[in-house]
């Protein structure tokens, strides 16, 4: 009747959670009816193994993206054009790293240890968002990332915050609150550049031109190619398809982009279909997207090198904390969570 540790997940694979296991169909029916009512799923609850695995994959990639997202922006902190911008950028980078910690913790409740996830990012085994596989070449890139990519992330995360897994939804609510500052600050930077000198305006246009492809790919493969969508929607892991998210982003932000006197590259053939009320565009090359997220983007090697360096350079801090705590064995109490 009483269970220790409300945030510790059940052990995967022990509770008839795979198709064919005794009781699976019955449990699945109860699970699906609960989820469809809008109930949240908590760590110790019965859940299909496929749900657990999909969520681990999704939250892990999301956490990695927060870490890797801090890298292109972090590199610009020494070169920020004013103290105010520098302070805001430092705060944003700290937020992103904090988000990663919240997310690793949420994924951990599903039975994969934080350590394992950190290792898999550094070794290149785990993925992170396509957009952070590209270089931030100029200050206008920082502005563009902070405005348009954070806008895309907010479209995705406010949707995911309504999802069925309690710990992930709670982490996302907090994350969205902080992302709102990132978005506004990014917009503020873009307004400054767009309304500044011709050189500033051109620099921003150049950034938008280079970032438009990664941005169009940001919400993931189109519904015709995306493999996971149906099941994820039924289990309320995802509330909207990739294409629906992309449309929402375009409807909200294309007018704002034009309003700043900016354009997007012609090759995308962007136009608003008045009849259907949707944006039409040339479909991104999803093979290229997959190639990039597998670690073959222009900045992929640099990102992992930087991440590894940060992890290794920070080892002394962890050792110092550890020795101050006077513990000899690390992580005893979570050994069973992996």
């Amino acid at each position, binding site marked *: *009747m*009483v*269970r*220790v*540790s*409300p*945030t*510790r997940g059940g052990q995967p694979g022990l509770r008839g959670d795979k198709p064919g296991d005794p009781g699976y169909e019955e449990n699945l029916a109860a699970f699906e009816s609960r989820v469809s009512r809008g109930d949240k799923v*908590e760590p*110790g*609850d019965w859940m299909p193994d496929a749900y657990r695995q999909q969520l681990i994959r999704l939250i892990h990639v999301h956490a990695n993206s927060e870490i890797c997202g801090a890298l292109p922006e972090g590199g610009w902190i020494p070169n920020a054009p004013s103290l105010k911008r520098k302070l805001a950028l430092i705060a944003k980078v*700290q937020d992103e790293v*904090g988000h990663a*910690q*919240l997310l690793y*913790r949420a994924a951990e409740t599903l039975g994969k*240890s*934080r*350590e394992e996830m*950190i*290792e898999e990012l550094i070794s290149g085994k785990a993925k992170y968002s396509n957009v952070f596989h590209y270089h931030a070449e100029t200050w206008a890139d920082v502005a563009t990332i902070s405005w348009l990519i954070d806008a895309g992330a907010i479209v995705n995360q406010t949707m995911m915050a309504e999802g069925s897994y309690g710990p992930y939804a*709670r*982490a996302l609510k*907090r994350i969205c*609150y*902080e992302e709102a500052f990132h978005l506004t600050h990014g917009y503020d930077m873009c307004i400054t550049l767009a309304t500044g000198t011709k050189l500033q305006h051109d620099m921003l246009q150049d950034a938008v031109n280079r970032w438009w492809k990664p941005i169009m790919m940001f919400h993931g493969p189109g519904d015709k190619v995306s493999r996971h969508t149906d099941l994820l929607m039924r289990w309320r892991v995802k509330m909207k398809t990739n294409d629906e998210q992309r449309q929402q982003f375009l409807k909200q932000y294309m007018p704002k982009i034009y309003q700043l006197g900016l354009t997007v590259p012609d090759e995308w053939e962007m136009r608003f279909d008045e009849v259907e009320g949707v944006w039409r565009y040339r479909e991104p090359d999803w093979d290229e997207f997959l190639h990039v997220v597998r670690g073959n983007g222009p900045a992929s090697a640099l990102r992992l090198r930087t991440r590894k360096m940060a*992890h290794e350079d920070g*080892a002394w801090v*962890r*050792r110092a*904390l*550890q020795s*101050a*705590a*006077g*513990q000899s064995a*690390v*992580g*005893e*109490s*979570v050994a069973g969570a992996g």
Partner: protein
Amino acid sequence: MSDTQWQIFEVFHQQVRGEPHVYVGSVHAPDPEAALILAKEQYGRRQASVSLWVVPEDAITATSYEDVDMFDHGTDKSYRESFGYETTKRIKSIVADRTESRGEA
């Protein structure tokens, strides 16, 4: 490298004096003091805060969601709720009766 997998501490945050401490999430830390520092960075960085508690995860004992019987009210318990009493209706009717009887007199 096994130095990132520290113990989990659950974090409780109080926004202003007089309000309850609310569960907000958790941190990994080697001891409670370090947990408080990390909790302050993670959960007390933006919003107003006057106090934080950290509790080792394994110190918490909880009921199970599957244990629905535990919270099921087997019988009508409205006698212990204010909505279980019709004082307003009763007093209105008493006042109405009085007015009526005075009217007759």
